């Protein structure tokens, strides 16, 4: 199908190159090109803005200090470092990923072989539906349901913790992981399944021993995409994690992420140390997610099934 389509396209292009170029056509092409240029420039503009804002820190060499130090604005002397937030972001995202990855893989295995025929479609629709639930609602329900539960169950602390946020965030990234993996599993040659069946393998064996190992790359891409989404999320962390700017040492600690830090700190002018810490946090966050996006692109280039983009229905 892919090859057929490619020939069709190249024939179409060749035929159009033979036909005479029309002035109106050129105009329209230029106009459409301007739209693409706008989108591309937007990224450059945002990168430029982040670099420009952190320029004072980068030039004076304070960037490293900012990234490693504590956040103690009312201390004497005050410190405006974002070290705890970086650790907070990383630990929250990784923990959520560790929780979500087995769930996503399990869900996908269920959809591809283990589910009774009548169940598989409704479950897939439910996973799609999960993507349409706003993050603020995940956060809100977590605050009013999960946090009190943790508070009562553990008998200590306020319940606003790394654990609560990670559990909530895991629910948020499960559909991302599941849908990407699902698209890949759907593209696997149906003859492979028939071969497995004729070897007398059970559905569970087929999924575990053949289909999942065959989609190792998609699994990696899904992991990276899930991590990127977990790092970029603001609302769950802001509402559930407690927002204390401290280095996380246990699951029940209140933590603050880079995203929540940006949302919380009030800066009134670009010269203030608060604003500089925001710029540094923004730059760190952008660098992390950009590296992850590039990794996914690279994976997509080497895979047969085309690119590993987030599924259209997020």
């Amino acid at each position: 199908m892919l090859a057929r389509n490619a020939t069709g396209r190249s024939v179409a292009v060749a035929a159009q190159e033979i036909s005479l170029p029309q002035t109106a056509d050129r105009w329209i092409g230029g106009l459409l090109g301007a739209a693409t240029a706008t989108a591309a420039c937007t990224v450059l503009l945002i990168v430029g803005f982040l670099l420009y804002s952190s320029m004072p820190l980068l030039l004076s060499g304070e960037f490293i200090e900012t990234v490693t130090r504590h956040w103690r604005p009312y201390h004497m002397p005050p410190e405006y470092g974002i070290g705890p937030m970086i650790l907070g972001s990383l630990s929250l995202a990784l923990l959520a990923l560790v929780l979500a990855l087995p769930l996503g893989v399990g869900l996908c295995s269920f959809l591809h072989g283990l589910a009774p025929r009548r169940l598989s479609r409704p479950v897939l629709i439910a996973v799609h539906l999960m993507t349409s639930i706003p993050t603020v609602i995940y956060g809100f329900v977590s605050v009013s349901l999960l946090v009190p539960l943790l508070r009562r169950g553990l008998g200590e602390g306020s319940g606003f913790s790394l654990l609560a946020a990670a559990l909530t965030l895991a629910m948020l990234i499960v559909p991302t992981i599941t849908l990407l993996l699902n698209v890949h599993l759907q593209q696997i040659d149906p003859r492979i399944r028939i071969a497995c069946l004729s070897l007398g393998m059970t559905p569970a064996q087929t999924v575990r021993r053949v289909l999942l190992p065959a989609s190792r790359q998609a699994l990696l891409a899904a992991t990276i995409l899930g991590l990127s989404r977990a790092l970029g999320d603001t609302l769950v962390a802001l509402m559930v994690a407690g927002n204390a700017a401290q280095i996380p040492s246990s699951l029940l600690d209140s933590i603050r992420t880079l995203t929540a830090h940006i949302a919380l700190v009030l800066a009134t002018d670009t010269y203030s140390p608060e604003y500089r810490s925001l710029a540094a946090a923004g730059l760190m966050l952008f660098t992390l997610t950009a590296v992850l996006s590039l990794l996914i692109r690279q994976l997509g280039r080497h895979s047969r099934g085309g690119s590993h983009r987030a599924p259209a229905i997020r």
Partner: protein
Amino acid sequence: MRQRSDSLFAGFAWGATFLVLASIGALLAFLFVRGAGTLGPRLLFGDTAAWAALLRHAPVFDGLWPAVVGTLLLVCGSSLLAVPVGIAAGIHISEYAGPRVRRVAGLCIDLLAGIPSIIMGLFGFGLILFLRQTLLPDANTCLLLSIVCIALLILPYMIRTTETALRSLPEDALLLGPSLGFSRWRAVRHIHLPLASRGILSGMILSVGRAAEDTAVILMTGVVANAGTPQSLTDKFEGLPFTIYYLAAEHRTVGELDRAFGAALILLLVTGTIFGFAYWAHRGLEQRWSLRS
């Protein structure tokens, strides 16, 4: 031969599915049970008469109406900006661009799609601080700024879905234009776009959903708790997702918490409906092509 580890694996898959579905079920059930009682005209308009609020004779103080209006304006405004540009760029990348342009633009759009929404908000916020120090000392965060930043957020989705819809057209549709001697734009306008319209539509609907739900961007760019309905683009505004966030953290009375549940339920119904439309458009598309080939 059936091995024990394989049965364990099957159990794990069933368990994972059950766990996820049960959590989502609990989330939805909790929201519906807790929120259903709050629904009603009082939730939207508070003590103000509905017609007076609709005709803007009287301000609404303790209802969700201003937040609904704010979100509506935000969604309409950002879609007006992002949808035409997104569709145009999608057409350009899939139909006009050469391999090198396609690669560079694809890279930029992947990066743009990966940027966390809070950074879009920070960008807007920094832009205002910059403008204040240079050209416009009176610049402040406002509805217009939020519209622009949300538009940037949904732009990559629009481009990607348009591009994907156009690129997954079958071969005969691509050959139809040249075989009739159509110019490139004519083929795109009269053959490719109509055939891809459902895919583009589903992308458009999803972008609208994303514009309606995002909180991080508006948090940084001009949403406030008690703005009322905005009178102009340079006003502060209220938004449904922000109202949920704000009331969840700052509610002082049970009534305010009830309002947060009402807002959450309304937002969920809105995004659920949007999702339903997108799913319907997408499924129609799948059926169309699977019938043909």
